[in-house]
């Protein structure tokens, strides 16, 4: 807008710079603290300029926290959740938008309702299900009397095998996929695809799978990138759920590892803040890089999520 407001422009920049400081200072402090030795990091107030112990601290932290395998686990989990979500979301949204059948609205609402309750508020029973994912089916079989029926007829009871998901990648990934976020992103996108596209495709004799694969999926690339970025950040940053599902260190994630490097009198250890901050920096870096490099997709995904 063309108007001269030199004083206000100065104020605008001042406010933005203060905002920048507030939002970036914590990150900067984490970085600076991770580059000093034990003695410097514990001086009050700590220097605001990086020290010379960066490489040494990072190597110590990386080895001590076993970030190699932990980061790999986090990556498996994040990629698993992201791909699982995209595949399931695309398929179910396709089913809801492009087919007309009676249960359509029922399914729509069943998925819609899952938006209301995040994993954290139903954490206790979800954990119980993860101990045996087939238990719901077993109990349904029991309640319906199917088991008693086959017992009567064939002398065999139906006993489903146990599907124990604790300490497994499936346990880390599956419950995080069971929500509606992506489905709605895809549904919204499908609804904006012109009707003529399907008419033309049908006229050419294209079947539903072909139409999905050759026409809709290529069109939804932007949508996919948006969903992928927000899902990656969301799943990499999971903390409470992995903490419950994983007791075997072999499946521990990087974010979980933060709990082990909290220095403090609680654990009777010297406050090794330089190591703790190096760990913090390493854990926060991968999703931060995704956000920085995929900024456009990320913002689009967030805003169109329509929670």
């Amino acid at each position, binding site marked *: *807008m063309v108007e001269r*407001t030199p004083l206000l*422009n100065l104020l*605008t*920049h001042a406010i*933005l710079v203060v*905002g920048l400081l*507030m*939002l*970036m200072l*914590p990150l900067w402090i*984490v970085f600076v603290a991770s580059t000093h030795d034990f003695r410097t990091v514990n001086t*009050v*107030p700590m220097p605001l300029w990086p020290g010379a112990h960066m490489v040494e601290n990072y190597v110590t932290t990386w080895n001590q926290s076993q970030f190699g395998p932990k980061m790999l686990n986090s990556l498996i989990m994040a990629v698993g959740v992201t791909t699982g979500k995209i595949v*399931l979301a695309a398929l*179910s949204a396709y*089913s809801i*938008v492009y*087919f*007309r059948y009676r249960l*359509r609205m029922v399914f729509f609402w*069943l998925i819609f309702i899952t*938006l*209301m*309750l*995040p994993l*954290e*508020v*139903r*954490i*206790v*029973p*979800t*954990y119980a*299900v993860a101990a045996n994912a087939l238990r719901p089916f077993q109990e349904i079989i029991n309640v319906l009397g199917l088991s008693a029926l086959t017992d009567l007829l064939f002398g065999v009871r139906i006993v489903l095998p146990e599907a124990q998901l604790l300490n497994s990648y499936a346990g880390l990934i*599956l419950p995080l*996929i069971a929500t509606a976020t992506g489905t709605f992103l895809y549904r919204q996108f499908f609804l904006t695809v012109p009707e003529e596209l*399907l008419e033309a495709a049908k006229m050419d004799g294209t079947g*539903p799978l072909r*139409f999905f694969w050759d026409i809709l999926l290529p069109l939804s690339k932007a949508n996919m990138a948006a969903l992928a970025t927000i899902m990656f950040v969301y799943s990499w940053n999971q903390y*409470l759920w992995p903490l419950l599902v994983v007791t075997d260190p072999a499946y521990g994630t990087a*974010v979980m590892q*933060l*709990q082990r490097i909290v220095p403090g009198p609680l654990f009777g250890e010297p406050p090794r*803040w330089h190591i*703790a*901050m190096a760990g*913090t920096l390493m*854990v*926060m870096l991968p999703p*931060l890089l*995704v*956000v920085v490099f995929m*900024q456009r997709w*990320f*913002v*689009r995904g*967030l*805003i*169109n999520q329509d929670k």
Partner: protein
Amino acid sequence: MSGKRVTFDRHWLALLLILPQMLLVFVFFYWPTGEALFWAFTLEPPFGGDMQWVGWQNFITVMEDPLYWNSVRRSVVFALSSTAIAMGIGMLLALFVDRELPGYRGFRFVFFWPYAVAAPAVGLAFRFIFAPDAGFVSAINQWFPGLWNPALDGVDAMILITLANAWSMVAYNFIFFLAGLQSIPRSLVEAGAMDGSGVLRRMRDIQLPLIAPTVFFLIVINVTDSFVNSFGIVDITTGGGPARATDLMVFKIYSDGFKGKDYSLAAAQSIILMGLVVLLTFFQFKYVERRVHYT
């Protein structure tokens, strides 16, 4: 729901496509939620055996527990104050970035980084920065010994987790406020300028009223998020202490259910929290049609 005019009619395929999602949602959403309801009304006998139906007993136990009300009170204070801080700052930054003065792209680029940082990482960073014996804030203890100590003082601990939570939510609010502001037709703001209203006046009388739906949407999202996602920050920063001063609702459910092994009590608390979240979400859906449509 608006559907397509032209559709396929192979019903078995449609069912097959949606089946995986429905299975997951059933096993990991509906079953656990149902089971939480069941547990909330039953008790496990101390010497084993079937769960016993106890009616509202678990809820009464929870409601009569002063520790529970303590955690509700703390959660409300936490949620409202971090929402106010995060939305206030997010809105201010968005309003001024939206002026699009030279360099605004740089600020816009950086302002949503905090969103990517995991809650426990935020917690650990803030624990260091605000530590009573290291970092920065402790400098005030050199002039006023013992003034700041989140490990001993409940109020300090609350301030600490509130600031950490607010910091991590500012970015989200900023993104949505900016999107809301940019969806306002430029001609409206220009018309205001033609009529001689200044920048601040236009913000107050044109832009803010027009993004009111965004404000409402964000209040609900922020409050829900603070209720739900606080666990990571609390667990790393204060561990619910000192003396339960930061014993927020999700943290209490976790400690009662998994540390105390009392599923029934934890389930009753979960149900109450679910009710609260559903209520907030319902509130939001009710006004959802008033929302600004972005892009």
